[in-house]
């Protein structure tokens, strides 16, 4: 029953991805915690946190692809939602420190004592409660996205105009969060976390649990995305992407549809940020940097825009590349990364997943030409913008 329900909403690839994610959610922590360090299957804590971080990026990429890949909204400011979720979580972790801060103030976080603040600003109240913080993790990015989207979509801001104002949004937040007066620790951000839900944040078990939570949330996100995309709503979104005004003439309130996915996507990004913070141990305004958001777009493009698992592959691959290159060729790694991006665009126009897709069609192509039969139907699972001929 449930499996049937599940498979009507998820395609084969999505199903495999979900299964894989659930599996690693259990296997990686188990291997890290139970296997002896000498075992070849042991995954060191270092890797657990690293992959955990990649997976939070992947979650951000999935969120971004939901709006960009399927609805044509190129957000150059998704990092803002990610960072806001991160800050909400960071505030909780900050409050958990309690009197163990360097100035031993029972209530005020260190940076406030140090700025000589006398009491907790109003917006810090409640964050000592995990569930409140968890709520804020989705609510704050969600509300910002809703307000922003409500304005922008209603005014029919589209295309690059929308992209640039999302960039302006994250840039403005970057500048704002840099200021000490904002009450979020200025450029140093929030750090020095001690524990989460009572568990020591640096303990191996906590790290493993955070990892598992990330993998499971990512699986959930894949499911939610699949569910949306495979529903009629998903078709409407793709329609909006291709011909927005035509959709209106069919009676669809395009702005509401956009607002819906936009907000969902921002919430997903917020969750990604919240999972990210305890795993890297710091959140600061640099997360708002426009370049970060652009990078997220690039993960999606590398993996394959408009597919559900492409963004995951892209995020993990690009970040793995970064990890590897920055250590292996610290002096010239930008050449390698830059070349990777150029090569992907030139040779894999549909991203890495597209490569797989185009193999399949090539094979089919070949078969079709041989048989010289009528053209086969084009598989609908891999939906892309039609591409006009290149020059010449």
């Amino acid at each position: 029953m449930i499996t049937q329900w599940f498979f009507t909403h998820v395609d084969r690839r999505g199903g495999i991805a979900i299964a894989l994610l659930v599996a690693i959610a259990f296997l990686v922590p188990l291997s890290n915690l139970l296997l002896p360090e000498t075992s070849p299957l042991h995954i060191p804590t270092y890797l657990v946190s690293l992959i955990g971080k990649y997976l939070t990026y992947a979650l951000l990429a999935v969120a971004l692809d939901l709006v960009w890949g399927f609805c044509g909204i190129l957000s150059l400011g998704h990092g803002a939602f990610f960072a806001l979720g991160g800050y909400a979580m960071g505030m909780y972790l900050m409050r958990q420190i309690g009197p163990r801060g360097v100035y031993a103030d029972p209530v005020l976080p260190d940076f406030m004592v140090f700025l000589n603040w006398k009491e907790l600003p109003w917006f810090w109240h409640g964050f000592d409660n995990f569930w409140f913080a968890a709520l804020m993790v989705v609510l704050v990015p969600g509300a910002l996205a809703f307000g922003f989207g409500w304005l922008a979509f209603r005014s029919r801001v589209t295309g690059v105009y929308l992209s640039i104002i999302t960039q302006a949004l994250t840039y403005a937040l970057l500048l704002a969060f840099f200021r000490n007066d904002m009450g979020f620790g200025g450029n140093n951000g929030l750090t020095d976390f001690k524990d989460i839900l009572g568990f020591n944040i640096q303990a191996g078990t906590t790290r493993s649990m955070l990892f598992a939570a990330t993998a499971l949330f990512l699986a959930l996100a894949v499911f939610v995305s699949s569910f949306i995309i495979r529903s009629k709503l998903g078709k409407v979104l793709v329609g909006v992407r291709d011909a927005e005004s035509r959709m209106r003439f069919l009676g669809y309130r395009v702005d509401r549809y956009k607002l819906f996915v936009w907000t969902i996507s921002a919430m997903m990004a917020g969750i990604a940020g919240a999972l990210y913070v305890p795993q890297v141990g710091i959140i600061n305004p640099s997360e708002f940097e426009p370049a970060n958001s652009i990078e997220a777009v690039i993960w999606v493009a590398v993996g394959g825009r408009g597919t559900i698992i492409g963004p995951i592959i892209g995020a993990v691959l690009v970040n793995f590349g970064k990890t590897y290159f920055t250590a292996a060729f610290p002096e010239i790694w930008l050449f390698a990364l830059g070349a990777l991006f150029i090569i992907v665009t030139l040779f894999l126009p549909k991203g890495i997943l597209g490569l797989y897709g185009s193999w399949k069609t090539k094979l089919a192509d070949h078969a079709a030409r041989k048989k010289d039969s009528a053209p086969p139907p084009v598989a609908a699972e891999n939906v892309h913008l039609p591409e006009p001929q290149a020059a010449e």
Partner: protein
Amino acid sequence: MKAQDTLLYLDGVSVSFDGFRAINNLSLVLQAGEMRAIIGPNGAGKTTMMDIITGKTKPDAGDVYFNGEVDLTRHDEAEIALLGIGRKFQKPTVFESHTVEDNLVLALSGPRSAFSALFHKQSANEAERIEDILYTIRLNGKRDWLAANLSHGQKQWLEIGMLLAQDPKLLLVDEPVAGMTDAETAETAKLLREIAKTRSVLVVEHDMHFVRELDAKVTCLHEGSVLAEGSLDFVSNDQRVIEVYLGR
């Protein structure tokens, strides 16, 4: 109010673009269940008139009422579509990265809210209607094709199919037979006549054979206002219509 008892009521509508008057004090009334053919020279304002009715262009002056009471100038495109006005565009616009079938699914009448779309399940009835339409527009063999890969004429058909799926009270059809063979043209005329039994239809065409086959009252627009109105024979014998439109 005069607008009452009419399906579509335009009175004194004007619109200009950068000083150019595309629609000039245009008045036009359409009764429920009526089919009307609109002809007129290129640039007479036919498409612009449809833009006004569907909310794409806001008129500078004049009244536009639907169903006798709804002031269309106060509604946006989506609301107007939901009121029951469907449109086929002059230049076929379909959703290129959807399959032919999905194009129809999207157009199919039904609730339009985001939540209902999220949890929508296709009913047997809907499936059957899509089947019918596919058959009507002769694209049942290509139901799984991406719309992008259709030829020009096939897109025209698909767009007509979408209009059918939408099941509106008033159909605005802009040049439906452009790019169709003569046989298809006849077919289309038949189809529209069929539809006009239960709905109202406003057709713009330049193909006089087709207009004749529609067997409907004809309005000829010129420079943004009505030049002549009446039966096809009446209109096509009007000297001014011959002068500006039909030619000798």
